[in-house]
């Protein structure tokens, strides 16, 4: 006799515990099998059901019962095969017979720790509420005080500077009659400065203020990365928009590195140093300098945690680019192993990277949003070789992390950037060290508005990651834990996978086309924001008087106006 525990299924989960419940319609389903074949987690499977059917034949009631076998699509209750709600089944169903439905009462996190392994996933913080950035509005409209600019007709310079700007007092300028020329020695009365002492004018790039943030080749599929790169090259060379993208940790294809396109890329070095053997060897053959070097110390989605590229993602191409054997786990430690202190190790690393390209390339660190950001900031402000500071807020994304890191660790980007900017203002260094804001830009689709708000809080530029994956490659992920399979290599869209069967679904040309569309439309929206504010000549960095928010606490914290 079966034990009671099996008969009453007492130790099994019910579907009500799961985050998504499959709604399957028997009357519409043709049993074609596409949904069960495509499901990335095998959450559904064909199953036989035995039905008891009562029927009557003849003129008089004569009920008979019979048993019949019916094939159904069944959702499994195995926590390891939970429905992620990605909806690929709906996408492939010819008859709209299947659809996952969010179950807000789920107790998923309570059970998703089998084997003592906490829930790990990709994606973003599962918090669908509007971020602070999303609540900011542009409330200073010029109408009668000033004829508003015409977003369609007037010239707008939507550009920013990446790299360190010398303070005006330290510029090595000499007066020759009515002209100023760059002189080698310091003029009398000119401020003493480390910059001048070394005769060093830091490299600066003029770039578009929205960048594609760091997503590695390896985390991304070859088609996705290729699509982004093509889109960025098109924006630069055809549209004249100097958009740059960051490689993420893991290098980039050597052929591209040696091409004229290298200047559109920011090379990232992180704690695993993956890809850097190849990069260092390619330097003598590079024809263009990269846009910048980003030293990653932290990531907003998983502050203080390292990275991991699972062995099954390390295929031949990835192994070659990263300079590692195939099919081994590639772990990036949580911190740089050489790091001892910010004064010593970070400064050294910035100088080493600067030296590698003859001090012609801006080098800057990226950290996760944190209460200690200002300590980092002030250290960089005193380091004449630091080219910027990128802060990645809690709404940033990742290819793989523990759920607890994503959901509960980190710092919102708005107040972090604002504090840093106002700290620089107090020192008169707000133009010297550009701040780059990342994490949650375009979270609810308002990319341009988010970018403009961050710029007005004091950022010089913003990074986006998830937004471009969604906008350009149709990523399913959202803040309701939908899909978030990036870490498994089973991305149903072919974005974060190295499985050719999956990434062949993604057409790189279409991705590139969408990248261009996203940037061009954001550019129009930025004009639509800046024009009524009367700003067109320079990016309105720190124009906090244009911002308003309907929450007095936020207004007070960010030192902007409260509106209601």
């Amino acid at each position: 006799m079966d034990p009671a525990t099996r008969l009453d299924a007492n130790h099994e989960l019910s579907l009500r515990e799961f985050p998504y419940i499959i709604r399957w319609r028997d009357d519409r389903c043709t049993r074609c099998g596409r949904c069960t074949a495509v499901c990335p987690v095998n959450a559904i499977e064909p199953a036989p059901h035995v039905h008891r059917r009562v029927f009557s034949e003849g003129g008089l009631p004569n009920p008979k019962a019979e048993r019949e076998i019916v094939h159904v699509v069944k959702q499994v209750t195995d926590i390891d095969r939970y429905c992620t709600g990605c909806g690929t089944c709906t996408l492939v169903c010819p008859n709209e017979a299947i659809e996952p439905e969010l179950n807000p009462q789920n107790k998923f996190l309570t059970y998703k720790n089998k084997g003592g392994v906490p829930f790990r996933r990709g994606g973003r913080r599962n918090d669908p509420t509007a971020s602070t950035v999303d609540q900011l509005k542009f409330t200073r409209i010029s109408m009668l005080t000033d004829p508003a600019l015409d977003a369609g007709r007037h010239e707008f310079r939507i550009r920013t500077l990446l790299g360190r700007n010398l303070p005006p007092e330290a510029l090595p300028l000499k007066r020759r009659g009515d002209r100023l020329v760059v002189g080698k020695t310091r003029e009398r009365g000119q401020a003493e400065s480390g910059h001048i002492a070394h005769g060093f004018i830091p490299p600066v790039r003029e770039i578009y203020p929205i960048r594609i943030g760091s997503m590695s080749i390896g985390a991304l599929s070859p088609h996705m990365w290729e699509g982004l790169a093509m889109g960025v090259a098109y924006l630069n060379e055809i549209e004249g928009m100097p958009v740059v993208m960051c490689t993420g940790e893991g290098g980039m294809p050597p052929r591209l590195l040696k091409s004229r396109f290298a200047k559109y890329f920011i090379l990232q070095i992180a704690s695993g140093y993956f890809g850097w053997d190849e990069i260092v060897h390619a330097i003598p053959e590079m024809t263009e300098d990269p846009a910048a070097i980003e030293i990653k110390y932290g990531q907003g989605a998983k502050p203080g945690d390292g990275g991991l590229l699972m062995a099954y993602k390390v295929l031949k191409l990835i192994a070659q680019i990263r300079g590692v054997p195939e099919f081994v786990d590639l772990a990036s430690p949580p911190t740089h192993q050489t790091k001892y202190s910010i004064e010593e190790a970070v400064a050294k690393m910035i100088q080493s990277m600067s030296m590698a390209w003859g001090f012609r390339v801006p080098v800057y660190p990226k950290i996760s949003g944190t209460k200690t950001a200002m300590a980092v900031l002030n250290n960089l402000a005193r380091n004449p070789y630091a080219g910027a500071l990128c802060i990645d807020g809690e709404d940033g994304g990742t290819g793989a992390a523990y759920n607890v890191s994503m959901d509960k660790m980190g710092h919102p980007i708005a107040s972090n950037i604002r504090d840093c900017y106002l700290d620089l203002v107090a020192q008169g260094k707000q133009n010297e060290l550009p701040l780059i804001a990342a994490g949650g830009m375009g979270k609810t689709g308002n990319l341009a508005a988010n970018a403009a708000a961050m710029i007005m809080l004091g950022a010089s530029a913003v990074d986006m990651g998830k937004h471009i994956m969604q906008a350009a490659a149709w990523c399913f992920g959202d803040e309701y834990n939908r899909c978030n399979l990036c870490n498994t290599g089973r991305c149903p869209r072919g974005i974060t996978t190295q499985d050719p069967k999956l990434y062949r679904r993604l057409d790189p040309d279409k991705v590139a086309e969408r990248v261009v569309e996203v940037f061009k439309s954001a550019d129009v929206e930025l004009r639509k924001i800046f024009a009524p504010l009367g700003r067109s000549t320079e990016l309105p960095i720190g124009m906090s008087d244009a911002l308003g928010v309907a929450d007095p606490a936020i207004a007070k914290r960010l030192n902007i106006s409260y509106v209601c």
Partner: protein
Amino acid sequence: MTGSLRKGPVVQRKYYDFMCRLSAITAAEYFSPMENVMALNTMKEGHDGSGLGLVLRDLGGDFAELKSLPILSGIASDAGLRELDNFMYAQGFEEVHMWQPNIDSRAPEPETGRRDHYFAKAYDYPKAVKNRSQAEKEDLLLGVRLALRVMGEDDESIFAFSFYPDTVTLKEVGDPLELGQFFRLDDGSLEARIILAQGRQNTNYDIYLYACHPFFLQGYCTMTNGENTAFVPIMEFLTSRGFPGYLGYNSDSEVFAHILHYTQRQLNYPLTYYKDVITPLAEKEIDGRKESEALRLIRRSLRPLCIDGPNCIIGFTPDGSVFMVQDAKKLRPGIVGGAPGKYALMSEECGLDEAVSQRDKTEDFSPMKYDMAIIKPGATELKKWNQLTN
């Protein structure tokens, strides 16, 4: 009226100067500020006649023989003036001459009522600083003016507009022509070779005299018709320079004067670079300039001082140059005309017709987005400088 003009704390607000009309005249001979006022009056359709701001430089009249002495210009209540005099005495400044307007009691009074004292007092330097450098003396004068400002700011018992040699400032609320008659500006006691006049108080909010331009700082002066939409980042940048005179900012236009001061006095840039700082060329346009390397550095390092919005700026520098520049899109009117010996820089042509009626009109110059019109010291020449081609 006695006592303070307004009780209670001053509400610090930013004022916009979008409905002003500007009237600047520079000449080889001394002339009366009434000429500026008459020119303003022809442009009355463009301003609301709510106020008058005057800065006179290179003075004739009462001050013709006192060129090296600092002149404190301001307004004070009875109590305020007593406090001011005590303070100046304590600082070691010896009053040499005091000009007060010969007020026409039959003329209409200013809108906010007649103040107790309008004055311009010339002082001798304290003995201890007489032999100090010009820069040190300028910083001392600035410190005194700021101290007086603080003393009288809360109860508005003292307004100290300028304290600098060979310079007088006069500001009041009301119709410019009526004010000109009220002060009897044509009585010959107050004349100058450079006069900047502006015909509007900021009426967006409560009228506040410190928000009235022209704004003057250590020999540098500007007035503006427009709205500076980049005001906050510029103000933050200026105040973070550590220079004590970069304060106030009751008007978004005040930063134009301080940018001029910063680039000319603090950074020692030639005057044309003012244009390159406030409306910088695009990166590609910079390639066409001889000093492109320097310009690129300036554009980057002084990025926060780039102005925005529609603005026509008229100003002067300590050497007696008077200039007009426009915003990067040339969204405001502005015209310069005259002949060697006398030039006028006006918001509108009718003002020019009033001020320099005998000029060759075909030589009139309206600076466009890349232009800077500079009248050389002594009104000897109009120099047209183009940002793209120089």
